[in-house]
């Protein structure tokens, strides 16, 4: 129980505070380091199979987690129909397995290609191992603890809501199998890792490009308006 409180009522706050404080600190003090550190220039082929699948599959799964959390009622109504539930779960497992395979490709690429290996840091490996654990746990949970889409709404969602409202209630998830709990913990471990690793490229996603004019001109001293 004490362990539950430390891991699921205290650690999440530590993780989020770390992410925010260190994230801002790093942005202010060492903005140069905010980069995705793309290695496509050194190796193209394995990245083609790994990177695209990894990012897109992961984004969709992440989006499903967030939608179920934010729009619980709509989610519940949607999966009330068994056909939709099975389709959704099937899709989730397929995407989950895709992320595992894609990440395995990316990890092997980092391990086996000498060029990529030299540009890989210890933190990169820590991140890869954590991510691999997390997505594998996710697939395991989806396969053997059915149906996640359903029980997620009555366990993880109220727990996360309690965290967000600063009245943490670990009782919602206390009786869940440990493997499910590990997956939940993994989410916050990744949050804690976020500001220290290349994961910061997540919030650097250049969405502003869509409305920015093509050309960027910066004046050292802004001139008077043209007549």
């Amino acid at each position, binding site marked *: 129980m004490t362990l539950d409180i430390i891991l699921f009522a205290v650690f999440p706050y530590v993780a989020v505070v770390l992410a925010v404080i260190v994230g801002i600190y790093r942005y202010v003090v060492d903005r*140069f*380091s905010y980069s995705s550190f*793309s290695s496509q220039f*050194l190796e193209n082929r394995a990245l083609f199979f790994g990177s695209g699948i990894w990012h897109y599959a992961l984004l969709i799964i992440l989006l499903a987690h967030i939608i179920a959390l934010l729009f619980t009622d709509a989610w519940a109504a949607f999966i009330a129909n068994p056909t939709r539930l099975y389709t959704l779960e099937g899709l989730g497992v397929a995407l989950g397995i895709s992320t595992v395979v894609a990440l395995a490709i990316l990890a092997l690429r980092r391990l086996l290609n000498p060029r990529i290996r030299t540009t890989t840091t210890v933190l990169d490996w820590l991140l890869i191992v954590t991510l691999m654990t997390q997505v594998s746990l996710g697939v395991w949970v989806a396969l053997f603890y059915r149906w996640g889409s359903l029980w997620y709404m009555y366990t993880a969602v109220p727990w996360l809501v309690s965290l967000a409202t600063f009245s943490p209630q670990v009782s919602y998830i206390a009786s869940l199998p440990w493997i499910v709990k590990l997956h939940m913990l993994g989410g916050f471990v990744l949050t804690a890792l976020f500001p220290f690793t290349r994961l910061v490229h997540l919030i650097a996603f250049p969405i502003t490009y869509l409305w920015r004019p093509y050309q960027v*001109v*910066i*004046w050292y001293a802004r001139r008077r308006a043209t*007549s």
Partner: protein
Amino acid sequence: MDVRAQVSMVFHLDKCIGCHTCTIACKNIWTDRKGAEYMFWNNVETKPGTGYPTLWEDQEQYRGGWERDSRTGKLRLKLQGKWGTLGNIFYNPYLPRIDDYFEPWTYDYQHLFDTPEGDDQPTARAVSMITGQYMDTIEAGPNWDDDLGGSPVYADNDPNLTGFSEEERRQLREIGRLTFFYLPRICNHCLNPGCVAACPAGAIYKRGEDGIVLISQEKCRAWRMCISGCPYKKVYYNWYTGKSEKCILCYPRLETGQPPACFHSCVGRIRYLGLVLYDADRIVEAASVPDAQLVEAQRSIVLDPFDPVVIRRAKANGISDLMIAYAQRSPVYKFFKLWKIALPLHPEFRTLPMLFYVPPLQPVQATMHNGTYEIIQTGSEGLAPMLSALEQARLPLRYFARLFTAGNVEIVKEVYRKLIAVRIYMRLQKVGDVPEPEVREALRLGNTDPDEAEAIFRLTALPTFDERFVVPPLGREEAMETQFPSLDPVSRNYPTRKGEVGFGFRKEPARRW
């Protein structure tokens, strides 16, 4: 009319001797760092050839620059649209790889000392500067096809030669070997840069005051679209720091009144630098005209710095009297706009490059007949008629048209007729063995007159350092004083953006996280 100033350049290819001193000067100052070994912000290519990176001119492969929608006449990035950029952000399908450049290496010199005694000479084995592993075979280098080394493999694959007839290719080999010339290249600091437009992070920008295109190292997030977006492949990706880098036109030197290092060190004195004024309102218009009109359109947006209207508009835009005076002395204005003998490189990429080239004259003066070397068409005085130099050019004019005028052969002819006229006129002045009618005919064909010919000769053959490099007053203090005559450092009545722009590393460019 939105008058802006642009530091721009002219390279006179007839004077380039291909010594690579510019490249080395640049390399030693800017790219002698980890991750930057393969970068050549300045490089010298042998043409015909495939260039650096290999086949950079082939935009079907690299998709750099802009293209004109044939139906609407509108411009779009050849790479992809904005949604395409975000969609391809995890994998850029058109990104060149390091192998399209070369894998940088050094040598294991210690091996020379450590090798035990044996029958063979020890060698200094090549070591990759990326992996640190031995490289058994070096397959490419930064200047692999220099002086046509490796031709016909390299020269015959020059993208500018596609569609050439067998007769034209034969002309290239007129004296038994392929003809060639050198093409030094740096960043063109374009008016409509493809790299800026392609960068989703908005990290690349054009400096308003002088038009230098820079990459903010703090804003770059390694989305690597700029490398594809630049049709000249002059943006390089630092694989070690995860940042893109490019030629900065040595702005720290310019701001202290010195020309860029590659200009300063040029042995053949082929390089000219000066300010031009242009109309920023007409950039898109000039970049959107059909191929054959591109050079003229670009000339038309470069403004006459002596025109009172232009001067008034320039002042209204905050361009100081001093800057205007420098623009009036600019050699680039003379070569490109006044004399019309300098041309942009590959204007069909539609980025409006601001580095112009005076194309080289390559008359066929001799041919091979049955294994003997014969000087052709020798006149009565032993002087081959120079007027026929154009028709006898060893490189087909179409080749130069591919390079410099988006296929418009007429413009190339006009340039060459003028260059020939200058030579004939000066021959008359210095040696006096050319018949008067031939001189008059040359001047008429070249659309020039004795004064202009004299001026072109003077700036081509006898320019002083200060005539070649009219470095505008970009010193920050100077620029501030000219714009804000009453400077008050206490209340700071002048706006600055210090700390927001610029290249300067305040920390070691390395991974720390």
